[in-house]
């Protein structure tokens, strides 16, 4: 006992060399991200503030940024509708082929985005598997539905995975008790399971939305027009160069940062019911 306490106090006094190394390496990573982002924003503000102001008052720029946010929001809503039930099944049920299903749902995370775009095009394009029969009713190519479909494909896994973790953290015994107290499954799900998994659902939704907004490769293949933020930035970069595209990039970053920080702050007050 005396030996143990001695060792502990020695640890308190001096940082282990390995931990010191870890601190340094994590600082490198942090600076890497920070410098890249901050340099762009600060550089823009210092050297070309008027360009930023111009971008912020330009209608096509604002339109493209709004389109990014809005299409991403729609993709997130569809992800919730489809991903939450999927996540619940994966968290609660065991079945043969479950591993396959889980891997399948994760595929969009690992394939290159341009590949995803090509694949989506062959399904939702005018002559695609679903695009052709749906042609009279809904157009995907160079249209809003195409943007949403591309965003949905790449971002849905983030929500599904987070929701699955959330549901796994809700003790099935709580659901059993709710059932025995007279709650049918849907009420149990709505009153017990969902509120207890809400933090994971929120975090999953934010991740999903963020991923949708940041998508470029898949979207640009299926819908160059109407232009979402990233497409406009790319388009300006090719036609007018870095100085024309950077203000839009800075604006897009600022808008998304403000939204995510706001959501984080608003949700910080939420109780945490995760199992300890």
């Amino acid at each position, binding site marked *: 006992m005396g030996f143990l306490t001695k060792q502990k106090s020695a640890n308190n006094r001096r940082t282990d060399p390995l931990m010191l190394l870890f601190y340094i390496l994590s600082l490198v990573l942090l600076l890497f991200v920070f410098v890249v982002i901050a340099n762009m924003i600060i550089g823009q503000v210092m050297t070309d503030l008027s360009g930023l102001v111009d971008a912020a008052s330009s209608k096509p720029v604002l339109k493209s940024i709004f389109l990014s946010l809005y299409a991403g929001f729609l993709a997130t809503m569809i992800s919730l509708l489809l991903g939450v039930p999927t996540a619940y099944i994966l968290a609660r049920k065991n079945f043969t082929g479950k591993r396959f299903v889980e891997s399948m749902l994760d595929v969009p995370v690992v394939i290159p985005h341009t590949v995803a775009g090509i694949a989506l095009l062959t399904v939702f394009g005018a002559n695609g598997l679903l695009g052709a029969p749906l042609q009279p009713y809904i157009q995907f190519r160079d249209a809003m539905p195409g943007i949403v479909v591309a965003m949905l494909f790449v971002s849905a896994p983030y929500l599904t995975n987070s929701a699955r973790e959330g549901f796994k953290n809700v*003790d099935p*015994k*709580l659901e*059993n*008790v*709710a*059932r*025995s*107290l*007279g*709650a*049918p*499954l849907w*009420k149990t799900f709505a009153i*017990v399971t969902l*509120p*207890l998994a809400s933090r994971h659902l929120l975090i999953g939704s934010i991740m999903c939305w963020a991923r949708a907004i940041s998508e470029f490769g898949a979207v640009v293949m299926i819908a160059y027009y109407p232009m979402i933020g990233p497409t406009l930035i790319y388009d300006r970069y090719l036609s007018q160069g870095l100085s024309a595209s950077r203000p839009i990039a800075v604006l897009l970053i600022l808008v998304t940062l403000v939204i995510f920080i706001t959501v984080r702050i608003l949700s910080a007050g939420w*109780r945490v*019911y995760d199992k300890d």
Partner: protein
Amino acid sequence: MIKIKELHRRWKEFRLAGIDLEIADGEYFVILGPTGAGKTLLLELIAGFYRPDGGDIYIGDKNVTGLPPEKRNIGFLYQDYSLFPHMNAAKNIEFGMRMRGIKDSDTVKKIAGYLNIGHLLHRYSQTLSGGEQQRVALARVLVINPDILLLDEPLSALDPGTQDSTRNILKSIHSDSNLTVIHVTHDQTEARILADRIAIMMDGRIVQVGTPDEVFDRPINDEVAHFVGVENVLKGKVTTSSNGISMLDIGGTMLEAVSECVAGDTVYACLRPENITLGTTGIKSSARNTYEGRLVEMERMGALVRVKVDCGFLLNAFVTNQSAGELGLMYGETVVVSFKASAVHVV
């Protein structure tokens, strides 16, 4: 009446094989068995949380095997209480009524008063002690007025003091409401004290069903004997009690115990077998309880020998192999057993 017929279910490492049980209305029925016997699974099948692979469950005349849990009107209490962490105690208790579309704060208050948790109603489960959570969970179950109360190891997560008081609560709930209770436990003392009847469950099978006396004094086979044969639990009546010393009448034989109980009460005297001293002649010692009895059973258990002595009541005691040899203990011989009054735990 609850009737369970030929119930089968495989689940992970457990296997329930052909469970047959009949439990009468108003009975306090204890399912006693070692960990891993499948007791909780059986309870969850009765509640309807899982479907059996085969067999039927009847409540009254109704076959409920295919009914979902919300249609069975069964109260279920898990070992860890499973209070909803996002609701305070009052909301937890109201849950069942809310599901039935009833608003009745009087009933909540009445039950909270009965279980002495009126002052905790605004609190969340994270801030409640085990015993308090237990009582909130009980209130939540009782409020729906269930036909059957299913208890999954309700005392094993509590400290000894709270165990005693909770056991009394369970007893009075049962006697006040005449509720049918099925209580699952691995604790023999708990089973003996609470049960009208006991079912011994081992490896997914019901091995023996009977009154506590039948099960503990006449175990059906070696396995059951091994499992139930250790602790001594004697039912008796307090004849006198003063200065912390009580005299208990155990079926005609008097026993002295250190205890603050009240004369006239029916109590249980618990006695650990290692606290009993064995001799062949009377020994003068500070042990207040000395009895002559016949040695009716001897069994080697490693370095120890378990002996059963009939001295008006049956007592299990441990002696070492060496002592057994030196004393020349033999089946059928008369021996003297003694133990201190302070070794007797009265509940």
